[in-house]
């Protein structure tokens, strides 16, 4: 078989694998939780508000069609990972266990990129 034909076939296979790999970890939108039966989920949503309630921090997250959930995470966990002067951005990606009955997500992991750290002041 002509090597260019083999290369073409392999390009198709590799492209499919490569493109699929880009979307493996794509989080669900908060709105997708409307039909989610409950359980572990990675979700992304617009942050409406957040604040401290005792030992927990609550976040109100809104999906693309306006569906809203409440997410909670232990205060100590946030301070340990994000520091005492933490701030959430407008878009939040979290992983946790969702309970559709209470529309509450118990956060186990906060996912955050490292986009601005490279421009931070440096300790030499």
């Amino acid at each position, binding site marked *: 078989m002509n090597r260019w034909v083999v290369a073409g076939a392999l390009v198709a296979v590799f*492209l499919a694998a490569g493109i699929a790999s880009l979307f493996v970890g794509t989080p669900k939108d908060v709105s997708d939780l409307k039909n989610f039966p409950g359980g572990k989920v990675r979700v992304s949503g617009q942050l409406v508000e957040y604040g401290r309630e005792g030992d927990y921090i609550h976040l109100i997250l809104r999906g693309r069609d306006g569906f809203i959930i409440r997410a909670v995470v232990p205060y100590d966990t946030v*301070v*340990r990972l994000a*520091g005492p002067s933490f701030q959430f951005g407008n878009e939040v990606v979290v992983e946790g266990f969702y309970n559709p009955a209470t529309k509450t997500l118990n956060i186990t992991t*906060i996912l955050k990129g*490292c986009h601005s*750290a*490279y421009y931070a002041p440096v*300790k030499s």
Partner: protein
Amino acid sequence: MSLLGVLLVFLVVVDVATAVYLVNWGPFPLVVKELGAPTAYLNVYVHVPPAVALYVMAALSFALAVWGAWRGLSERALRWMDFSAYSVAALGWYAFVSGTIWAAESWGTPFALDPRQMSILVLALIYSLYPAIRRGVEDPERSVKLAQSFLIAGFALAIISLFAPVLVQALHPRPGTTLGGPLGQYMGMRILLVIAIFLALLFAKPARWTSAVYLAGVVVAVALLYPWLLYQPQRVVNVTDTAIVLESGQVLNVPPEQVLSPAFFNGTPTLPKNFVAVAGGGVELVRHFSAYVNAAIYFAIMAFILRLRERL
């Protein structure tokens, strides 16, 4: 030993020395808005340069495969093609493993399923099939033709992986981001250094003992982990002007300025999220272990690549 062989040894020694120096004494972000210890960003010196070299070697293997399919390759160029493909596989695994170790601290989870993380895993898996093509196909001419087709197609994966953070939402920074910041000067020099090593390896076979320099680097990187092995460092969760509050709730009556200076930057404390250890009656800043671990793995992978080149 040829002049190029001497140059290669020099580059390898400089690679080990600069990696060790920067991981243990190099600059790191003072304040990080994102997750995890700022010292985890010392990983830029050992994670990014080999990852960039990976794309250079993938481009080289692609160019040689296209040229070979069109005009044919000399024995020497065929060795270059094989070496570049093997290097992509080895560096792909290193980029995935080191990135995953770093992600555990700076992204909040090791398996973030980030598009760059996942696409580099697919790339490493697929390029790992290359030796099977070169050794498994008995007819040498057919083996070369199949290898060329494989590398031409494989480059599509390298392109997808390189631009993954541009194509979809990602935790990984976009290509070129890291060169813009203050960390970029040293990292940029190391990128050029690692690429120079791979280019030198095309023209010069390393002397047998050259890989021993990298193995010595493994020993040094592991040795530099000693605070983690001896002093049980703890994460700082808060500071006052005169005290440091640890994750366990313990309060150290030591001004944070004595451990990390400046203690505040634009009103933000610099020590929280970092690790400190009580050692010898004082409190010391302990750099995040991931940079040392990744340095050790990097040196081991480079020793492997050098031994591989000896046999080609």
